[in-house]
C-alpha cells in the first residue's frame, strides 16, 4: 500500500493539494495508479499536464527503492488518511499529505510546541527546560524541532521527565542533524517520534526549514517561543502559528538582549506574555478542569511560593555557622557575579584546606555551586 503513496508523492507536478484531491476522488493511491485516461480526465480541476504525467510514469522502481530503505531504517509512512494524522493539520490543504516518521506515534492529543534560538542563553535554557518538564508531567505532548539550543533542551527535559515528545525535522528521518544529537534522536525514537515531510535520504537545506516550521505549528495547540533573534526560524514558526490561529506565547526578556529581539517583538505584535508553565496547560483540551483558569488566580500561588521560600531561607540562616554566614554575605554582595574562592581565603586567615572543606560540604548540601575556582549561591 505504502508503495503507491511513495509513487504518488514523487510525481512531478503533484503537490499536496492535488494529491489530496486525487486520493479523495479515487479512494486510494493504488486506484490513482490504475486509473485510466478517461477516469483522470473526468476529475475536475486536474490539469492535463498532471494527468499525462500520471499516465506516463507508471514505474514503481523508485518507490520500491525508497520503501526498502524505509524498511531497513524502520521508517514508517504517515498519510493524511491515517487516523494518526491530526485532523487539525488536515484543515490546511497545503500541509504535506504524506509524512515520514520513525518512533512510536500516538493518536493525536493535546500538544504544545516549544521553539527558540539555536544559540540560546542560560536563561532560555532554564525556561525551556522548566516548561518542557512541566508539560511532560501533565502528560501533554511536547513538540519541537531537534535543532541545537532551545529545541534540544526541550526534548531532553521532556524525556528526562518521562514525557512524550515529537521532533519535526527538515531532512530525511534517517539523517541526524546536527550530528551531536544522535543519542537524543535515538531516545526520541524510543519514547516519541521524529517526523519529517521529506523522504529518507534528504539532506537538510535552508529552504526546507519553512515547510517543517509550518507543519510543526499546524500540529500543535499552543506555541511557546523562548528566545528568538531578529531573523530566526522560531519567528517564522510563530508567524505560521499565528496564521493558523494557534495561541502563541513569548518569553519576555531584556530589550537589549539580542537573543530576545524576536520574542519581544512578538509580544508587541500581540503574542501572550509567558510567565509560568501553567499557562500552557490551561486551555489545552487534555486538562478540562483547568480550562478556565484565570490569569490572576494562577499567578498568586507562585507569589506565595516565593515568599514562603525566602522566609525559609531567613530561618535557616540562623542555623549557619558564623563562617558560613560570612561566606553567604560575600556571595550576596552581587549575586550575578560569582566570587573567587581565593577571595574568601581571608575569612579563614588563608587556610585553604578548611575553606575548601567547608565549601565542599556546603555544595553537597546544595547551598552553593562551585565551578572551578568560583562560587555562587544557589537560590531556589
Amino acid at each position, binding site marked *: 500500500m505504502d508503495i503507491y503513496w511513495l509513487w504518488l508523492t514523487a510525481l512531478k507536478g503533484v503537490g499536496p493539494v492535488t494529491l489530496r484531491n486525487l486520493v479523495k476522488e479515487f479512494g486510494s493511491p493504488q486506484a490513482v495508479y490504475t486509473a485510466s485516461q478517461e477516469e483522470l480526465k473526468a476529475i475536475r480541476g486536474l490539469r492535463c499536464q498532471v494527468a499525462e504525467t500520471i499516465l506516463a510514469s507508471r514505474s514503481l522502481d523508485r518507490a520500491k527503492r525508497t520503501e526498502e530503505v524505509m524498511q531497513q531504517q524502520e521508517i514508517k509512512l504517515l498519510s493524511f488518511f491515517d487516523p494518526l494524522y491530526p485532523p487539525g493539520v488536515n484543515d490546511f490543504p497545503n500541509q504535506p499529505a504524506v509524512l515520514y516518521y520513525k518512533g512510536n506515534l500516538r493518536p493525536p492529543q493535546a500538544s504544545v510546541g516549544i521553539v527558540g534560538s*539555536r*544559540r*540560546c*542563553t*542560560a536563561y532560555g*535554557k532554564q525556561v525551556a*527546560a522548566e516548561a518542557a518538564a512541566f508539560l511532560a508531567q501533565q502528560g501533554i505532548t511536547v513538540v519541537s524541532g531537534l535543532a*541545537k*539550543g532551545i529545541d*534540544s*533542551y526541550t526534548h*531532553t*527535559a521532556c*524525556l*528526562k521527565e518521562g514525557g512524550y515528545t515529537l521532533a519535526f525535522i527538515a531532512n530525511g528521518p534517517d539523517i541526524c542533524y*546536527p550530528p*551531536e*544529537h544522535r*543519542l*537524543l534522536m535515538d*531516545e526520541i525514537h524510543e519514547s516519541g517520534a521524529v517526523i519529517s515531510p521529506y523522504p529518507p535520504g534528504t539532506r537538510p537545506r535552508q529552504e526546507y526549514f519553512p515547510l517543517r516550521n509550518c507543519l510543526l505549528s499546524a500540529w500543535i495547540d499552543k506555541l511557546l517561543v523562548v528566545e528568538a533573534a531578529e531573523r530566526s526560524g522560531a519567528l517564522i514558526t510563530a508567524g505560521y502559528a499565528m496564521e493558523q490561529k494557534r495561541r502563541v506565547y513569548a518569553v519576555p526578556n531584556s530589550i537589549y538582549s539580542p537573543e530576545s529581539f524576536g520574542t519581544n517583538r512578538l509580544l508587541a505584535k500581540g503574542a501572550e506574555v509567558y510567565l509560568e508553565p501553567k499557562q500552557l496547560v490551561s486551555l489545552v483540551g487534555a486538562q478540562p478542569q483547568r480550562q478556565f483558569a484565570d490569569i490572576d488566580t494562577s499567578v498568586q500561588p507562585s507569589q506565595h511560593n516565593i515568599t514562603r521560600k525566602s522566609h525559609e531561607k531567613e530561618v535557616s540562616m540562623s542555623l549557619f555557622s558564623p563562617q558560613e554566614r560570612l561566606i553567604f554575605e560575600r556571595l550576596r554582595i552581587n549575586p550575578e557575579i560569582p566570587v*573567587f*574562592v*581565593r577571595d574568601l*581565603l581571608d575569612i579563614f586567615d588563608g587556610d*585553604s*584546606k*578548611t575553606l*575548601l*572543606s567547608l*565549601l*565542599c*560540604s556546603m555544595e*553537597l548540601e*546544595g547551598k552553593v555551586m*562551585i*565551578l*572551578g*575556582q*568560583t562560587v555562587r549561591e544557589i537560590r531556589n
Partner: protein
Amino acid sequence: MATVVNSFALDGVDAYSVIVETVTLHGQPSVNIVGMGDTAVKEAAHRLEAALSCGSFEFPRLKVVINLAPSGVKKSGSHFDLAMAVSLLHEAGQMLAIKEDLLEIAFIGELSLNAELRPVSGVLPMAIAARESGIKKLMVPIENYGEAVLVKGIEVYAFRTLVEVVNYLQGLLEYQSPVLSMTDRAPSEKDGLDFFDVRGQEVLIEYIVAAVAGGHNILMIGPPGCGKSMIAKRIPTIMPELSEEEALEITRIYSVTGHLRDSGYLIKNRPFRSPHHNASTNSLVGGGSPVVPGEISLAHNGVLFLDEIAEFNKKSLDALRQPMEDKVVTVSRVKSTGTFPANFMLVSAMNPCPCGYYGQARCRCTDYEVVKYRQKLSGPILDRIEVHKYVQPVGFLNLSDQDNGPRSADLRERVQKAREIQQMRFEGVPYINSNAQMNEAMIKEFCSLDSESTRLLSLAFEKFQYSARTYNKFLKIARTFADLEASEHIRKQDVSAALMARDMDKDRSGMLVV
C-alpha cells in the same frame, strides 16, 4: 695485516662497540667502506680523502677497504670518520703508534674537509659503552668534551683537529685538557621561572602541588588567556631536584637525539616539552628507522605539556596510554627495536567548550556541543588523568594589587616531603613509588576512610552521579592531600579537597543531555 681501532654506534639510547678495520691492498685505487653503513658512512670516503690531503698527509694510492664490525648490523652517522682516519693513517704507515696502544683507545668524531673535528650526537651513551667495554681512553671533538667527561672512570681527550690527534698518538704533542667553564652554559629559558609570578591562582596551585607530589597527571580546563601555559611551564620548578642518576638518564636521551650537540653538558633542569597539537604519533612516542626517541622520552623525568589536548589526533593520544602505565615505551620496527624510558608527568590543557568561554555569559555553546567537544578526549586517557581543574581568568583589574603567588622553592619543599612519605610507604614494592601508581589492593590498604569521610563521599556520588571508577581516583588524591600535611590517616578535609579535583565529572552531571 689490517689495523684495528675502536669506535661506537648507537642503538636507541644505548651504544655498542664497533671495530673499525682498515686494510690497504694492491689494486685499483679506491675506497670501500663495508659493514652496512648508511649514506653518511659511505660518504666518509670523500671526507677522508679531503681531510687527509688537507692535513698534510698523503692518501694512499691503493685499494682501501674499511670494515665496520659487526658487519651484519646497520650503522649510521658520521662519527666513525675519526676512527677511520686514524686506522687508515696507521695502516698506510704515516702514523707511528703501537698497535696495542691503539686498542685501548676509542675514537668518536666527524671530520671536516679541512681536517677539523666536528661535534656529533650520542657521545654520552658511547662513553658509557666505552667504559663498560674496558676501554681506557676516549678521543672526542672538543665540543663534546663536556658531555663525555660526565662518565666517570674513563680518560677523555678532546681535540680540535685530526693533526692534533695524530701528533698526540705519536707522542709529539703534550695533551692539555680543556678547561670547562660553567659560564659557557647556555642560559636555559627555564631559569627565572617561578610560581611567584602567578597571581590570583592560589587554589589551583594547591592542586598542582598535590598532582606533582602524588605523581598524578593533571588537566587544566580554561578559556584562552587564563594562564594555563604560564602555570604549566612552572611545574618543573616545583618537582624534586634531579638526582645524578636521573640527570644522566635525561642527558643520555638528549645526547642521542642531537639536542646536546652544541651545549654538551649535563642537563640539570627537569625537561619541559610542549609539542604542538599537530604532532604525529611517531614524533610523540618515538619511531623512524633507525628508531629515535619521541617527545614522551624527551620529557622523561619531567613534564609533557599537551596544550589544546582536545585538538590532538585521537590515535596519537591513545598511543600514550601504554607508556603512561609502564613508564617505558618500546618502539618496534621491522629491522630495529628501541626501548626508551618515558616516565613523565602529563600536564594538559584544553578549552571547556568549542568557543572557549564556557560558564561565562558570552558563551552560546549548547550542552550537546560541549559534551561532544569533551568526548574528543577518549575515556582511557581521561582515566589516567586524575586531576581535572578549571582555571578561571583572574580579574584583570585586581591583578596589580594582588599578592604574589607562593615561591616555587617553598612548594618544592612540600612536594619533597610528601614524596618522602610515599617512598617510605612503597619501600620494597617494585615499580611503585607514588600514590598515583597504587593498585586496587594498595588502595584498600592505605586509603581507609573514617565514617564521616565515607558519608561525604557517598553524598557526593549521589549528588553528582560519579561513575564507579572515579571512586579510586578520589581516594588516591585524598591520600596525596593527607601526605602533603603528613597526616597518617585520610581526614574529611582531604576527601573534600579531592572531591573538588574532578571539575569535569561534576560538570557532566549538570548538563541537560540524554
